[in-house]
């Protein structure tokens, strides 16, 4: 948790409006991605609505499905990952986020505990693929192997493959919970998300 003790920006959690702010202050850089999730956590992030306008005075979203950048920057203050680690590409992204982000947030139940994607875990991978691509298919049954990342034998929560600093459970975590967590990080504090969200939410 040492990474959390050196926040670069200090702002009150309530984020009062500051007229005339030009964005010259040192903002927290943010990267987000979704792994094996439904994008619902990102939708919940968008549900911050007009509070997003307040937040961007303290945050620079450098890389995300919500912005246009194609490459994860070398250094980022806060990384936010939604979704479980289910295939080789999820694993690569999780490791890249851990390498480049000072604080890594595990956002939502899929990232925190595997959630719905992990419901395949009691079955062997071959049985799962057969079920999805052979048993229920009438035309040219085949398992896709070209251009898609290979599935991992087991779906895993993010913290089982990389170290995670902040956990925000919920399916999805409410927008208020996301706002609370980001506000606490902006203020240089360690958020306790159990105050504002829970498994299943």
């Amino acid at each position, binding site marked *: 948790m040492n990474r959390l003790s050196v926040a670069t920006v200090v702002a009150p959690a309530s984020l009062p409006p500051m007229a005339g702010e030009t964005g010259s202050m040192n903002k927290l850089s943010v990267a987000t991605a979704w792994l094996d999730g439904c994008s619902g956590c990102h939708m919940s992030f968008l549900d911050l609505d007009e509070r997003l306008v307040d937040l961007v005075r303290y945050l620079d979203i450098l890389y995300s499905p919500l912005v246009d950048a194609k490459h994860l920057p070398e250094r980022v203050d806060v990384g936010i990952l939604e979704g479980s680690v289910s295939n080789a590409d999820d694993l690569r992204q999780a490791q890249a986020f851990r390498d480049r982000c000072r604080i890594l947030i595990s956002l939502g139940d899929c990232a925190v505990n595997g959630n719905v994607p992990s419901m395949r*875990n009691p079955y062997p991978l071959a049985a799962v693929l057969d079920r999805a691509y052979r048993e229920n298919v009438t035309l040219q049954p085949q398992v896709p192997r070209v251009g898609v990342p290979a599935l991992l034998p087991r779906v895993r929560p993010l*913290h089982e493959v990389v170290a995670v600093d902040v*956990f*925000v*459970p919920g399916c999805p975590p409410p927008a208020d919970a996301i706002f609370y967590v980001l506000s606490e990080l902006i203020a240089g504090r360690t958020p306790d998300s*159990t105050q504002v969200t829970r498994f299943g939410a």
Partner: protein
Amino acid sequence: MPPPPTPANVRVVTLTIDGQDLSARADETIIEVCRENQIPIPSLCYLDGLSIWGACRLCLVEIAGQGRLFAACATQVAEGMQVLTNTERLRRYRRTIVELLFAERSHICSVCVSNGHCELQHLAQTCGVDHVRVPYRQARYQMDSSHELFRLDHNRCILCTRCVRVCDEIEGAHTWDLMGRGSDCLVITDLAQPWGDSETCTGCGKCVQVCPTGALVKQGTSAGEMVKDQHFLPILARRRQAR
């Protein structure tokens, strides 16, 4: 109906819980005194109106001068007892117990019919479980949907045995029992037959209402729709006592 009169020969003792001076009847347990005085203490297998099981270990407390921990549900109060219910050690143990329950079977809250009305889910939040630090077992357990009114999902069962006890002690049917050991332990109906084939089940649904999770639910409920009502239990239990 008024509660049965307090037996005249029961002594009153004084004790402290978390530094608070309290008096209680000598035949009361620590958890009963805590509940009467709004001292929060987590529990899963304990339920007012059922016999004491003492298995979930969530209500463990520290007692001054004693080396080991005591289950508050299974420990009677005594004169001069000094009880601590919320120390750092107890919080650590409770969090670990809840995490182990989540890791043992598949409690996927988001798609559970009891989402939002589940005692295990609520305990996870109040015990500070924002993630589970032990690996998930990911074992596969069966469901039993053979009963026309109710459904059993072993994946969400925490083996608190509330269903076993309420069926035996309140309904008097003893349809439920336990089978197997360790992680293979299951609640069963009759001699491990499908619930729908049970000759002893009266279909009263008391087991469903006392189940703390989404293991026993009504048929036809969707995610988050299963709200349980346990008000009947202390009333029926008191009537049985008075008889």
